[in-house]
């Protein structure tokens, strides 16, 4: 099933990628081709086969609850594109109340 321009627009929005028209056109073709090649997998009979999320399973991984020095606030903010009053600064998220 080929990827449509509508799919590309939808997925780009989900992935938070502001793509150009040229990029979208190329992706429409390339993703269709990659997924067509993957039909060898999607058409497999996997009735009764359990999925593998990790090849080597570990259970109940815990470590001792030791107090250690955390990453300092200054270090944590050192790479921030914008910081103010010891916090990350971001554009407005919520609309102002009427």
């Amino acid at each position, binding site marked *: 099933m080929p990827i449509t321009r509508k799919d590309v627009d939808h997925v780009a929005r989900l992935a938070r990628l502001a793509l150009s028209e040229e990029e979208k056109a190329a992706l429409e073709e*390339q993703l269709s081709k990659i997924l067509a090649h993957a039909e060898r997998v999607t058409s497999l009979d996997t009735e009764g086969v359990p999925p593998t999320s990790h090849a080597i399973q570990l259970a109940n991984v815990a470590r001792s609850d030791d107090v250690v020095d955390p990453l300092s606030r200054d270090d944590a903010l050192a790479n921030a594109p914008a910081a103010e009053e010891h916090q990350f600064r971001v554009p407005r998220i919520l609309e102002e109340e009427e």
Partner: protein
Amino acid sequence: MSELWQHTAGQLSALLGTGEVSAVDVTESVLERLRSVEDDVKAFITITEDEAKAKARKVDEMRSAGEDPGPIAGVPVALKDIFVTKGIRSTAASKILENYVPGYSSTAAARCDAAGLPLLGKTNLDEFAMGSSTENSAYFETRNPWNLSKVPGGSSGGSAAAVASGQAVWALGTDTGGSIRQPAALCGVVGVKPTYGLVSRYGMIAFASSLDQAGPFTRDVRDAALLLDAIAGQDPKDATSLPIDHPSYAASLEGGVDGMRIGVVKELAGEGLQEGVKIRFDEAVSVLEKLGAEIGEVSLPSFEYGIDVYYLIAPAEASSNLARYDGVRYGLRVDGEDIVQMNSKTRAAGFGPEVKRRIMLGTYSLSAGYYDQYYGKAQKARTLIIRDFERAYGEFDLLVSPTSPTTAFGFGERTDDPLTMYLSDICNVPTSLAGAAAISVPCGLAPEDQMPVGIQIMAKALDEPTMFRAAYAFEQSFRGRDSQIFPELVSR
């Protein structure tokens, strides 16, 4: 007397241990070599000359004060620029991390430091380790030291090229679906993809978390075992690191392959190989046979679709991992009217074409309505690949194939069609999907282009000792016949 930079880490460790040479001598020699060929090879994004010299002095001071800095202390190392290093810019070869200076170090980098290895610098890679040629670096292309018009492979192309050209005695890379083994083969060096969980992923910039694994690039098998000994082991900072006491790999080299059962993987060693790769691989198998190994052919039918499983699973995990680059806490920010615009413009400007492609592919295969058809299906097919391995290891101790179906290719040859580039990893992805171990060992030059060929030796999860034993036996026997280690670039 050859130059110090030409020695293996094992040889240098011995010289350093007896005090015949100092860590400063070794580091200066390697740095001089690094500088003299870097304009040709372009292996490094960042060179940390001052840090390397300071560390070398510290190791020498410890030795002269009668303290033991450890068996490999003073042998300089290069790190793929995907391992974060405190106070040293760490980019993943992406514009989105161009100015990122981490406030902490990856466990692998910290263990190299604890072992006394002076850090030479951070090596080039395909952006976020996504690629097979290092052409996807946002900064520049790295050239193959054996022929500067060819790619070094990827994604750890900078580390492979640095070791091959003598710019580093050894280096670390990461392997998600071949990113250590394939460039090692293409550059004529040894590369190890350890069992998943053997080396901590803490501070390794994440690509596909169920597959990513760090490992060494070296000039011989002994060095690979020595470096793996230094970086392997459980880490409380990585919940997927394995809670085991691993044996010494450097102590696992001897013993040979007499009586060992080695299976040649039919699906990877037959059709579709470059002629010279086939010739050198077949010779390598006959060397193992002469050494006493019982050779047989084994079919693992699921390997036919390994690459498709990989390119459904890895991008899905990547799309999730790379959601963190949102322009808020670190990295690039491009302003927008609201937060969604800011996020979207930042990511569009900061990521290169291959990274965008994989994020799109992964997001699609995880999205509502397609999850079962793509990601869910691929996870089940992953189980079938693991079952094929289990069946094969019922009959054989190790499996072998060429590491790459071709030798190094030219710049631009595979960049037009993503799928063609993806198929470069066809021999490598099954081991990654199974979380198992594999090593690539040089097995000569292809007659038609005089470029290196590697044999891939695959082992069960945590059976690195058997893998190293076979790799070492092969190398010892093979070296006698063809002792060229450094490419022409080195001798000029």
